[in-house]
């Protein structure tokens, strides 16, 4: 793809900036919106990595359902006012940021952490299509069918658990 470096750099910068703004902002609603922006950027990066199905699923599930759930809870608990949660004057934020920067510098500096041993496979735009994902998910010879069925039970358990956790004790 010709435009992949341009897409990568623009989306990488926007997603990192949105993530930093999410962490730095005191208003939880604005943090949630910055996180939605990060998710959308990551979805475009998935498109650049020829994972079309996962990109669409990322927008539908993460940005369209999970973050809406977050916004509901924030709004229902009425935590929009920044005065509600005041952070104490400790050294913890600075220590966290400092160590985080140290980690990023270590990551960028050490080649052995990020160098991938084998050469890259040739670009294959058919790799992430729905047909490809579906055939590999449901193939009887591959190990993905059983976790897929177990995931449905997991989601059922999560639904039951969430309802029990959040219902009023009458």
């Amino acid at each position, binding site marked *: 793809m010709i435009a992949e470096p341009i897409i990568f750099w623009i989306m*990488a910068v926007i997603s990192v900036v949105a993530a930093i703004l999410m962490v730095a902002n005191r208003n939880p609603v604005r943090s949630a919106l910055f996180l939605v922006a*990060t998710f959308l950027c990551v979805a475009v990066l998935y498109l650049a*990595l020829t994972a079309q199905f996962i990109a669409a699923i990322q927008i539908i599930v*993460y940005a369209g359902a999970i973050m809406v759930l977050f916004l509901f809870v924030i709004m229902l608990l009425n935590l929009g006012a920044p005065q509600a949660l005041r952070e104490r004057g400790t050294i913890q934020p600075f220590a966290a940021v400092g160590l985080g920067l140290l980690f*990023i510098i270590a990551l960028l500096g050490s080649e052995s952490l990020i160098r991938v041993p084998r050469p890259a496979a040739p670009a294959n735009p058919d790799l992430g299509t729905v047909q490809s994902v579906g055939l590999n998910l449901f193939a009887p010879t591959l190990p993905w069918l059983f976790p897929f069925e177990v995931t449905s039970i997991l*989601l059922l358990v999560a639904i039951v658990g969430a309802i029990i956790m959040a219902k009023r004790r009458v």
Partner: protein
Amino acid sequence: MVPTSYYLVLSGILFTIGVIGVLIKRNPIVIFMCIELMLNAANLSFIALGRHFGQVNGQMYVIFALSVAAAEVSVGLGIIVAIFRTKETINIDEVNLMKY
């Protein structure tokens, strides 16, 4: 084609920002959002490496990580709502009943 190590570095940076958020913030909902950011960073590196090796396995892992994250968010937010209902505050410095 953008080298895969660039995607891995981006994934590491997003993960670190998520960790910083978990350490700094006092509001458990925002901490949860930073955990979601960390999960996304891991998903990004899965897909980048999947594309690097030319396999669909990376995307398979991401599908399952996505569904587990969705389940986890629903239960976690239910717990937070339950705590808020009894304690009227969710500043995690004050929700420390298990300390004594």
